[in-house]
């Protein structure tokens, strides 16, 4: 997810993916849960526009 997010143009997904990965490395379950929630909220509120 960390690698794919940027490839698709979603830098925010890359940031969240990175945070989840770091949290997973140290077994921080609470942080993983929080970041997962942040991802859900981001995806639900995501709006794509075609204007500068």
């Amino acid at each position, binding site marked *: *997810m960390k690698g*794919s997010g940027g*490839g*698709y*143009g*979603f830098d*925010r*997904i890359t940031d969240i993916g990175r945070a989840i990965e770091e949290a997973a490395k140290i077994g921080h379950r609470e942080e993983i849960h929080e970041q*997962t929630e942040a*991802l*859900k909220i*981001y*995806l*639900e*509120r*995501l*709006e*794509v*526009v*075609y*204007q*500068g």
Partner: protein
Amino acid sequence: MREGKDRSVLLISADLDVRDGLKEIFLGAPWLLVAAVNPNGVMEKVREMPPAVILIDTSFYEEERRHLLAALNQIDVLRGKPVVFLTAEKDRDGRIGGWVLKGLNGEAKASTREAFFASVGQMIALSGKETAKDAPPSQEVVDGRLLHPDFGKFKKYLMERFARSDA
């Protein structure tokens, strides 16, 4: 058809087969197809009849696509219009056997005229719904010009995956 608003579909493709293939599909369709290699040649037409959706051929390189979307964005009547990325599926002889349509609301494959219009119609309807709904105050906005054509599929994949993790 001419009196209706947003009753056209703008196609931008450098591939003659794609333009001709879609012109044939759109004969007698509910939308008038305005096909062009770039938006400059069809400015007058799109101002007269603003499109409901813009179809962009994925055979453009990424950099070309960004320039194209930036150019489309300079045209007032096209600003904010839903964009669908279109790929023609060709056989070994170069004949088009089907279409893949990728929009914000996912991906659809169409091998018949009816399926093509069903997909385009659904994407137009869903795009309208998206913009009409009340946006929450902290809406996350991203620039569609910077996204990969498969972004809708990727988003759908993540949403399904994380929705399942709730169960």
